[in-house]
């Protein structure tokens, strides 16, 4: 999930500090780190290689003459630098990370260990077939888990993240439409959709048509059906949706879509709410990406990598991109050649070099084997239970626009409860940082004003949820009581106060550059 800054002040307030400033600029265990370019120098390296000469004979006259400009650092300096930097980050391993739509669940260490087995981590993608049978078998096992859990007949494994999976699904739809000799260029996308949905639709050459939401947080099925027509290729619906609600009319919508000759793309980022209980295939979905980095807990790594396999219905399966994994009598084989396709396959193309995010596949399968079907279901139930517990525990003091009914895996609040307090959603979130919590997703989905989307996941204990609830209640009480002090200019206890995003965008400094006039050495 990502952040939108609608209504979000990006100029920081003024910070006040009446502590004794330190001489070093560091404070206890809060340690600063300059840029490697500022601490590195010539004459040292963190990797030892012999200093051999090579001739120019086979370099085509293109041997590098200029220096690259990289700083030299020894290993201890590099380790210290990145350890210090790491300490400036929040992480699931350090605390509750309630980012709605992002599914910051526990990342088991076993999965890291498994992904590093040399047979996986040190396997070349183009090694001969006989040398890769275990890897192909693993992909096949994972495909079985994904198709079984979703109740879909096929899955394309190569997409590298959710958005890439969306692209894969839409390209399959495009190919299917074309195969029928039709021209359908419109895609219906609810206004509550994640930004990648319209972006992907445009990327794939479609025209995006927004569908409004109903007051109950679901897509307006009537409006949607009204927009269906011969030029509509597909709808892109998120389910459970970005308000954390199950699209209760989904089966009817699917039917209408299919009747109109269109396809049903489902954004599966929230599959973690229903895995093991509900099969998307039973809902009439034609294509859905699964963020292995959400539902199946491959670590987010500060922004990636992820993996976004796409399950496909019978209607779309033939269009899955290359490579295709097939099993024959002497083992597994990757089909990469259009002239050797299995019967009926009509791949629309290729999503990327090689065959997908193997490192994530290992982790995801390790997660699935560990949980089992029972554990996957229990995880979904616990995620939903925890979100509802938060909703029930906070809706009296914070405002929950859809708080009448149960939610799925995330609880949505809006900023009504802050009205007239002078405290904004952003202030509220930044005050959470001071309390030792990562803020929830803010200002998303767009259909709710000042949205705060809380996804606790199944990884929190009740005691952890209770503490979190108590802190949010405390903050809400103070805001309502007009005690603005802790909100203004928050955070005050983080490694940085609020950052000036406006300045950053106005005059972008996107890389370090050496001083134009280097100083003389001291």
């Amino acid at each position: 999930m990502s952040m939108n800054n609608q209504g979000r002040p990006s100029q920081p307030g003024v910070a006040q500090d009446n502590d004794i400033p330190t001489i070093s600029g560091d404070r206890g265990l809060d340690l600063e780190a300059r840029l490697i370019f500022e601490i590195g120098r010539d004459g040292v390296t963190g990797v030892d290689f012999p200093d051999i000469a090579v001739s120019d004979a086979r370099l085509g006259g293109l041997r590098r003459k200029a220096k690259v400009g990289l700083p030299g650092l020894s290993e201890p300096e590099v380790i210290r630098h990145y350890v210090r930097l790491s300490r400036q980050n929040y992480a699931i391993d350090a605390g509750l990370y309630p980012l709605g739509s992002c599914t910051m669940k526990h990342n088991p260490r076993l999965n890291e260990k498994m992904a590093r087995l040399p047979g996986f981590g040190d396997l070349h993608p183009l090694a001969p077939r006989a040398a890769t049978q275990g890897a192909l078998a693993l992909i096949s096992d994972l495909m079985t888990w994904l198709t079984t859990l979703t109740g879909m007949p096929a899955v394309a494994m190569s997409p590298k993240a959710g958005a890439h999976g969306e692209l894969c699904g839409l390209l399959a739809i495009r190919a299917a439409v074309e195969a029928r000799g039709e021209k359908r260029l419109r895609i219906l996308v609810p206004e509550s959709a994640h930004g990648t949905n319209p972006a992907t639709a445009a990327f794939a050459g479609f025209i995006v048509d927004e569908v409004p939401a109903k007051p109950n947080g679901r897509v307006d099925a009537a409006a949607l059906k009204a927009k269906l027509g011969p030029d509509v290729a597909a709808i892109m619906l998120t389910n459970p949706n970005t308000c954390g609600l199950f699209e209760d009319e989904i089966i009817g919508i699917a039917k209408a879509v299919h009747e109109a000759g269109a396809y049903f793309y489902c954004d599966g980022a929230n599959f973690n709410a229903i895995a093991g209980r509900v099969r998307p295939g039973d809902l009439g979905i034609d294509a859905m990406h699964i963020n292995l980095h959400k539902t199946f807990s491959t670590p987010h790594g500060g922004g990636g990598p992820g993996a976004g396999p796409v399950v496909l219905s019978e209607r779309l399966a033939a269009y899955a991109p290359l490579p295709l994994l097939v099993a024959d009598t002497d083992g597994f084989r990757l089909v990469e050649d259009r002239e050797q396709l299995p019967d009926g396959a009509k791949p629309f193309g290729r999503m990327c070099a090689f065959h997908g995010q193997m490192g994530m596949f290992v982790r995801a399968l390790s997660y699935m084997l560990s949980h089992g079907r029972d554990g996957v279901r229990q995880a979904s139930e616990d995620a939903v239970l925890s979100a509802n517990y938060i909703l029930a525990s906070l809706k009296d003091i914070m405002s929950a626009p859809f708080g009448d009914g149960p939610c799925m895996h995330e609880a949505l609040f809006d900023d009504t409860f802050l009205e007239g307090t002078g405290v904004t959603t952003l202030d509220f979130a930044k005050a959470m940082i001071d309390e030792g919590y990562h803020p929830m997703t803010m200002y998303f989905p767009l259909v709710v004003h000042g949205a705060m989307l809380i996804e606790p996941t199944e990884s929190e204990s009740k005691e952890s949820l209770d503490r979190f609830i108590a802190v949010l209640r405390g903050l809400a009480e103070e805001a309502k009581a007009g005690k603005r002090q802790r909100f203004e200019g928050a955070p005050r206890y983080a490694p940085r106060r609020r950052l000036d995003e406006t300045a950053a965008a106005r005059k972008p400094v996107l890389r370090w550059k050496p001083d134009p006039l280097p100083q003389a050495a001291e």
Partner: protein
Amino acid sequence: MRYLPLTPDDRRAMLAKIGAPDIDALFRDVPGEAVVPVSAFDLSETKGEIEVERILSRLASRNVAAGSVPSFCGAGAYKHHVPSAVDHLIQRSEFLTAYTPYQPEIAQGTLQVLFEFQTQVALLTGMEVANASLYDGSTATAEAVLMAQRLTRRPKAILSGGLHPHYAETVETVANLSGVVTRSPVTPGKAEDIAALIDNDTACVVVQSPDVFGLIRNLRPIAEAAHAKGALLIAVVTEAMSLGLLESPGEQGADIVACEGQSIGNGLNFGGPYVGLFAAREKFLRQMPGRLCGETVDASGKRGFVLTLSTREQHIRREKATSNICTNSGLCALAFTIHLSLLGEEGLARVARQNHDRASTLADRLARVPGVELITPAFFNEFTLKLPKAAAPVVDALAAKGILGGVPASRLLPHEPAARDLLIVAATEINTDEDFAAFEAALKEVLA
């Protein structure tokens, strides 16, 4: 289940607080016909670590790890030595289990890394700006082509015959939608005359150097020809380490560089996750795809970093975004940054020379094998051999002898007759003289 902290008692207490009789009540919005029992899934039940480890280790042992035998596969993915500090650092909880740095006050670690990464990528490629990573080299190339189409408002992309065929297919898959992609002929061991194909409809030419056969290409004349027609030159690099020994694409006039960063900091991983490096001239900044990290100050005047220029991105711009990318390759970028920090100027130059030296030595040895011909006159750490027979079965025969003898060109170009007998061979700093001797002996036997 070891990952689930809630106890049965907790669950009961929580349901009571919610006022729900049971868990099913929370799923009441799900149409009844769509709810299935757990037995509907023909899948195994929960397992302990011992059992999971046993299953996955057994699968892993059925693969041949590159480090376990003499190994010479390249063609877009390279086995290099990654210093042990890299894996230690990327496993720090605060890097591994953090999300995208949307709350900069508690994400300066990730953000500063990205700023360092962008700087390193810009320096290495010789470009002015770089983004915070894309998925991999192939998707970066596709993004570069789309960006060139947007910038020039022209439809045509010309792909060099030396571009990795997987990259070419990836580009075609997306860039054909709104434009036209043409491929120039495959000329193994030689540079095709791509400049001749550029016309006034051409948005960009895409040239890989070293190309998929290992040949070092001179980009200067192509850049000049492209610029003369108002087209852009997109340089593709699949072996990032080559930039330590070769002139950067930026110096040669490239407008956009798409590069696979796997070689630096990242393992082979059977093809992913890798890390796409994406750099361009500063004037193209607003059309760049992907995240950008920028420097700023906080309210107390301290330097800090934030994600910036996000008005290019999907979460702000939605269907008008420059790309749909959201999750990228953060942790792989971190590994890249740490490895390159460890190498530094001197270490990178040395390891790059080592690669070239190793590959040259191997090329000379293998070219001595009767019937074998070296067809790449200029290369970094990868070259192509013409064998006296089809390369694919030779590679299988070598594998049976415990040698991963490179990539047969026919695997990438199944319908290119010229590719049939070609073997693409890479050697890096990890290969020893004993590896070479074993390879030479085995190749002799297989060809005999």
